């Protein structure tokens, strides 16, 4: 197994396209190293992306935030601007694993590992994040909800990888939140994950909403019906019940060692209601 550390995007694309055998990208390594040890992955080339400047760090500009795909969650979690603007996204990515995992894990990895249960993805979906993708044909931008196509599968073409995540600056009277269910308080994979983002108009009515779901279908979901349940309401009890219904209806989960089908469907609705309430409070507070 060979190991390369490209210094530029072009170099990385070139490695990916010219390499004949199985190549695997390495960012935080928290998924890859486990797979290597378990014999679930046996690439003959590991490409470490962490030496490429364009994949590292967080830039904030009037147009919003750009988070390098290989930036560690610990680093992102320390960014005050992002915490203030998108608290739901930050609380989601801070849930990825232990303190030790936080020191390594990245948003790029969390997304491209393509697990339905990735914690950051539903929150990023709710926040309307867009991925910058580099590839042989240059870079393109894709809404994050379109990246994961199935367990372990993404829409990335050969030679492509995620460069960065773009988040807009939230509009006035906006708030987001992420909640997940795990059996313990830490160290588990999400059994259900729900991200909610809302924007209120001046009168306190929900003008915009996005709801992302995790661990309840083969891919993370953007649930339009759930958003509709909130839009036009004051996010009151009635709207929250409609939201819970819509969310549960959108769930197509499997039953496995982490939770039953019924459990996931019900708890998804419960968490959606709770997350929406938090998002609402945050929207009102801005």
């Amino acid at each position: 197994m060979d190991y390369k550390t490209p210094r530029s995007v072009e170099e990385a694309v070139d490695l990916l396209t010219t390499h004949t055998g199985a190549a695997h990208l390495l960012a935080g390594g928290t998924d890859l190293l486990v797979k290597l040890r378990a014999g679930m992955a046996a690439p003959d080339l590991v490409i470490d992306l962490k030496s490429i400047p364009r994949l590292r760090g967080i830039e904030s500009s009037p147009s919003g935030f750009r988070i390098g795909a290989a930036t560690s969650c610990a680093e992102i979690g320390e960014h005050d601007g992002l915490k203030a603007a998108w608290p739901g996204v930050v609380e989601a990515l801070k849930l990825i694993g232990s303190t030790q995992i936080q020191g390594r894990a990245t948003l790029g990895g969390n997304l491209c590992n393509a697990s339905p249960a990735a914690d950051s993805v539903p929150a990023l979906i709710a926040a309307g994040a867009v991925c910058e993708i580099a590839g042989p044909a240059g870079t393109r931008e894709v809404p994050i909800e379109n990246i994961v196509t199935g367990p372990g599968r993404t829409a990335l073409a050969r030679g492509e990888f995620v460069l960065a995540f773009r988040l807009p600056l939230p509009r006035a009277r906006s708030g987001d939140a992420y909640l997940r269910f795990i059996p313990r308080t830490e160290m588990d994979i999400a059994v259900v994950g729900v991200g909610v983002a809302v924007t209120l108009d001046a009168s306190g009515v929900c003008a915009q909403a996005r709801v992302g779901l995790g661990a309840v279908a083969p891919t993370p979901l953007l649930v339009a019906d759930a958003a509709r349940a909130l839009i036009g309401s004051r996010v009151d009890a009635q709207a929250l019940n409609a939201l819970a219904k819509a969310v549960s209806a959108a769930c197509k989960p499997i039953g496995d060692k982490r939770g039953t089908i019924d459990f996931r469907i019900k708890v998804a609705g419960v968490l959606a209601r709770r997350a929406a309430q938090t998002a609402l409070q945050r929207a009102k507070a801005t």
Partner: protein
Amino acid sequence: MNDITNQSVLERHLKIVGTRPLRPDGVDKVTGRAQFGADIHLPNMLVGKVLRSPHAHARIKSIDISKAQALPGVKAIVTAADFSDLPSEFIPAGEMMVNFRDMTRNIMAREKALYEGHAVAAVAAINEAVANQALNLIEVDYEVLPHVMDVDEAMAPDAPLLHDNMFTIGVEPKPAKPSNIAKRVEFALGDLAAGFAKADVVIEREFLTRPVHQGYIEPHACVARVSEDGQAELWCTTQGQFIVRGFCAKLLGMEVSKLKVTPSEIGGGFGGKTVVYLEPLALALSRKACQPVKMVMSRTEVFRATGPTSGARMWVKIGATKDGRITAADAVLKYQAGAFQGSPVQPGCMCAFAPYDLENVRVVGYDVVVNRPKVAAYRAPGGPIAEYAVESVIDELALRLKLDPIEFRLKNAAKEGTKAAYGPKFGPIGLVETLKAAREHPHYATPLKKNQGRGVASGFWFNIGGDTCATLNLGEDGTVSLVAGTPDIGGSRASLAMMAAEELGVPLDKIRPSIGDTSSLGYNFLTGGSRVTFSSGMAVVEAARDMVRQLRERAARMWEVPVDSVIWEDGCARIAEAGVAEFKSMSLAEIAKTAGKTGGPIVANAAINATGAGPSLATHVVDVEVDPETGKVTVLRYTAIQDAGKAVHPSYVEGQMQGGAVQGIGWALNEEYIYDAKGRLENPGFLDYRIPVCSDVPMIDTVIVEVPNPRHPYGVRGVGETPIVPPMGAIANAVAHATGVRFTELPMSPPRVLAAIDTAAATR
């Protein structure tokens, strides 16, 4: 037999025993210096790896190792063919009765693989990569057989048989057909029918628990070195270097004196390191390769192939009068043994009702083999399972009778003179004291909020003694090296050194305790049964008293007085009689300095079979909150109260209580083995085998009750095992009170709790 009397020791003023000094091995453990099983490296060492069965139950038609053998860098390969078969009889191995036919099949599958992860072959190679390649080159031809995982299925007449030579013991007439039921046991007192007839309230429930693993953080590991002349050395992480020696010598057909076993520091055992897995394989590989072989299990192997404790199905029926006296108690316990007989159902039966004073009681137990890894001991083996079921019914009875659960237990509590359900009368025991302490604890009076509940449960464990040796060597400067033969898992070097220092009257730092290898001491039974501070403590005290006798003799000689006139106090020899003022006193160091001239080195040994272990009883109180929308149970507050007899080092006694309580929280809420339809373990790692993490639990308050054990020089009882007995019952009772739903299944994981709440709500 030991004849140490506890004379006035219990009353006498103690200077060291009962204090909280720093542990003597502490610095090595906080600096990373301490050597655990996997930390040992020898020159020219090979790496050993095990090929394991992917099937839960399969006949092994053939094993072809030729391709693996031919791989450059492969130095040895062993299969069952390299171990001689042994007869199916229980014969003594050291202190244990062991069926070596089963043991030799468990370490290496013979005719059949009996569980997923069952060892089928082992390889020693120049490095891990080559060893893994070699495993892939070994060709095993399996005939997959139907498997059985659950006791009820395994007990069914048409169940797939694991062993066609197994006929149930303990049933009359003797069965003509083999079955998966290894044994039926029964304990009974009085007249059940009459007892239940007297009852005003009778409650009957069925319970289900799943296997849970000890979950020690250090995987099994060892290094074996066998030389051309058959002399062998083994370094391993174990709870008993002497039982490892005995097992391996038998399995490999060696003389025990040819095998020297040195225990490394041990990274947790909880009963799981009282058996052998890798050790005989490493020795067999090293014997072939004539090079040292190191073997370390992966976490996955630990879960798939080492012993959890039993999952069980249980039925419990208890009757009581309006005024709260239990009139009769009946139970049937069916325990999974794993692939070979030997579940802890027998101690489970004996523990089930042990905390209570019962006239009419019966417990029937079944030891049932299933296609799962052979169970190993786990902290009070058998007790927690049975007592969880019983304590749940006890709580429900108290509720039905509108009695406080502590008062109800006090009305029925076993005390000195109570005839245990398994026969003998108890000596002094401290259950009543723990119940009263619980009742008076501020925790018990704290108000609860919505969705919160408080649970109480008591627990019993026997504790044991057994073969034990200890040596004290007096150094020329008056310091003492203490050698014990029971591996120190939880700080026992501290408690042993403290007892030695107390007896010798010297400061603790004058004693350097260590754990000896099998060539440095006589036979020691293992660290288990909560026996170390009791048994090794007893041996150390006996050795120390013998050393004092020798010291008085040396002083008497130098003073030219009769030895009777010399007493020993505060680490000095003194003349007892008045009027001989010119001889004031002679310190240990002074006597040590001239030991050579006064008769030679001063060494004291004790070799005993420690008897008179005293049971330890406990009562736990726990508050939980249940999220009615997700079924998640949060432990809010926990108080563990236990009779330690005498806490030699209270911090480590508290530590045992706290650790046991939290293991119990895991058992109660989330820990379980999850198998797929093919009998393959789906959660062989710490990600999905969910032991409690730091943020899952509150501080664990402790109250140490001291009802001295009259048979120990310091009144010590074992404390290590009892703390894991009450938690499951206490938490189940707390969850029942928080939700109004009675849970009879472990673990009480969120999906199960939510489903039960919803079902109850629907039928209400």
